[in-house]
C-alpha cells in the first residue's frame, strides 16, 4: 500500500513537472528603454517584456516578471530568487562562468559614444553603467571609467559635464540623442562588442535552457523576432535575417 501511494505521488510529481503549469520568474532591470522599462502605469514594458511573454506562450510556461537592480541581478539568479534574466544582458565569456545563456535573441550590435560635442575627448572621462560590457571596454581603451548604477545616470553625467562622453548600447542612446534638441550627439565611431543579447539562466537549469532555446529558434524561423526588433529598435537596427533561419 505504502509503495502504491509513493508511486502515485511520484507519478503526480513527474506529471506536474512535465505538463506546464510551471511558473518561471523572469527578472529585468526596468531602466533601459527600449529594452526594458517601467511604463506610465508602473508596469514592466519594452522589447524584452513583449519577447519574454511571447517566448513563454510558445513554451507553454506561465511567466511572472520581477524587477531587480542591475548590479545584483546575477547573484539573485544563482541564489534562485527568480529563474531567468532578460535585461539587455550581452553574452560574454566572463558571465558564462557564472550563469548560462540561451542563444542570443538580439544579434551582436553596436555600442556608441554620446557627448555634448561630436569631437569630444573619447580618452577622457567616459561614463558607463557598472558591470556592463561597455564598462569593460572603456577600461580597456585606457580612458578613465566613471561607473554608475543605472544607464540614466550615465547620460545625466554627460549632461552636467561630469563625464566627457557616455558609452552604451546604440539602441539605448538613439532616442535620447534624437530628443535632446541637439544638446547631445554621437561621437566617434560605433564599436561592435559582445556576443549579442541572450536570456540568462542558472547553469544547473539545462532543461529550461533547452525550452527557451527552442522557443527562440521558432521565433527566428518565422521571422517574428526580426519584426519585433525592428518594431522596438527601428529600421536601421541589426536583425537576424536569413542567417537566423539556418537549420529551421
Amino acid at each position, binding site marked *: 500500500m505504502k509503495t502504491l501511494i509513493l508511486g502515485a505521488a511520484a507519478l503526480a510529481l513527474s506529471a506536474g513537472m512535465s505538463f506546464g503549469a510551471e511558473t518561471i520568474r523572469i527578472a529585468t532591470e526596468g531602466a533601459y528603454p527600449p529594452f526594458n522599462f517601467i511604463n506610465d502605469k508602473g508596469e514592466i514594458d519594452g522589447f524584452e517584456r513583449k519577447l519574454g511573454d511571447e517566448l513563454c506562450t510558445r513554451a507553454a510556461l506561465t511567466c511572472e516578471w520581477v524587477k531587480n537592480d542591475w548590479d545584483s541581478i546575477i547573484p539573485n539568479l544563482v541564489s534562485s530568487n527568480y529563474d531567468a534574466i532578460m535585461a539587455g544582458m550581452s553574452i560574454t565569456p566572463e558571465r558564462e562562468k557564472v550563469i548560462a545563456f540561451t542563444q542570443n535573441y538580439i544579434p551582436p550590435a553596436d555600442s556608441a559614444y554620446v557627448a555634448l560635442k561630436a569631437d569630444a575627448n573619447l580618452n577622457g572621462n567616459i561614463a558607463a553603467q557598472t558591470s556592463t560590457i561597455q564598462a569593460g571596454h572603456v577600461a580597456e581603451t585606457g580612458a578613465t571609467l566613471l561607473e554608475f548604477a543605472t544607464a540614466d545616470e550615465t547620460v545625466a553625467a554627460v549632461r552636467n559635464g561630469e563625464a566627457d562622453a557616455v558609452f552604451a548600447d546604440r539602441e539605448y542612446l538613439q532616442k535620447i540623442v534624437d530628443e535632446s534638441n541637439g544638446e547631445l550627439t554621437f561621437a566617434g565611431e560605433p564599436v561592435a562588442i559582445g556576443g549579442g543579447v541572450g536570456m540568462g539562466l542558472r547553469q*544547473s537549469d539545462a532543461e529550461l535552457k533547452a525550452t527557451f532555446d527552442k522557443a527562440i529558434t521558432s521565433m527566428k524561423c518565422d521571422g517574428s523576432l526580426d519584426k519585433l526588433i525592428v518594431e522596438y529598435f527601428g529600421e536601421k537596427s541589426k536583425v537576424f535575417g536569413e542567417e537566423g533561419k539556418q537549420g529551421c
Partner: protein
Amino acid sequence: MFSSCADPKALEGLSWFLCYLTTGKHLLFLGSFGTVLLLLAVTAPVALALGFGGALAARSALAPLRWLGRVYTAMVRGVPDIVFFLFVPIALDQGLEYLRHRVKCPDWTEPIRKGSDFVVCPAAKLPLSSAPEWEHQVYAFVLAVIAFAIVFGAFAANVIHGAMNAVPKAQLETADAYGMTPRQTFRRILVPQMWVYALPGLTNLWMILIKATPLLFVLGIEDIVYWARELGGSKTTGASAYPHGDWRVYYFFVLLCFYLGMTRLSEMVFARLYRRLSHGQATLAGEQMRKADK
C-alpha cells in the same frame, strides 16, 4: 486617471502636470510612502520588544542568558549596519529554504549548492515560484523588518540596560524595605521609572530608524527612494507619454521635505511624551515640574 489625460501630447501647463502626477507610476510612488511608514510602524515596537528582552537577558542572574544578551548587543553594535542588512535577509532566506528542503524533499538527491547556484526543490521555495508577485514582495519586506529589528533591537537593548541602571538605587532599596519581592520591585518601581531615563536614547534611535529606512532600497524593496530615482530619471517618448529631462533633484527634494517633516513631528511628539513621563519623577526635569506646579 482622468479622461482628459487620454492624449498627453495635447496637454499643456497645469493640466499636463495634473495628468503627469496622477499616472499609475506616481500612485505607486505615493503608495511607497505607505511602505516606509509601515516599516516604521512595525519595526519600532518589534525592536523595542527585542531591546527590552535583550536588556533583561543582559541583567539576568542566569549566566548563559546574560551572555546571550551581552553577545547580542556587542555583536550587532560592532558590525556596520549595512553588512547586517545585506547579510540577514540572504542568510534567513537560504536558511529557511534549506530547512524546508530537508523537511519537504527528503528524497531529493541533487546537491543544493551546484557551483555558484543555490537550488532547493520547487516545493521548498519561499515563497513558491507560483506565488503571485505581491507575496514575494511581502516576504522580502518581512525579511527587511527582521533585519531592521535585530539591528535596532540591539541599540535599544543597550539604551534600556543603561536606563535600568540609572534608576536610583535608593528607590529599589526602599521597595525592598517595604517587603516587595524582586519581581514586584521590577514591575512597580524599576520599569515605570526607567522609561524617563531611556527616552532620550530611544528618541535618538527612532530618528536614526527614520533616516535608515532608505536602506529598503538597498534590499531591493521599491521604497520612496527607488520611485524617486525611477520617476526623476529623464524619459524619452518611447518609455513614457510624458517625456521630460532629468528631474531627480525635484523628486529627491520631495523626499528631503518628507524626512524633515517626519523627524520634526517625532520631535514634537517625544517632547510631550518626555513631559508626561517626567511628571512626579525624582529627576531634574521632574523636580522642575514639581516646583513649577507650586
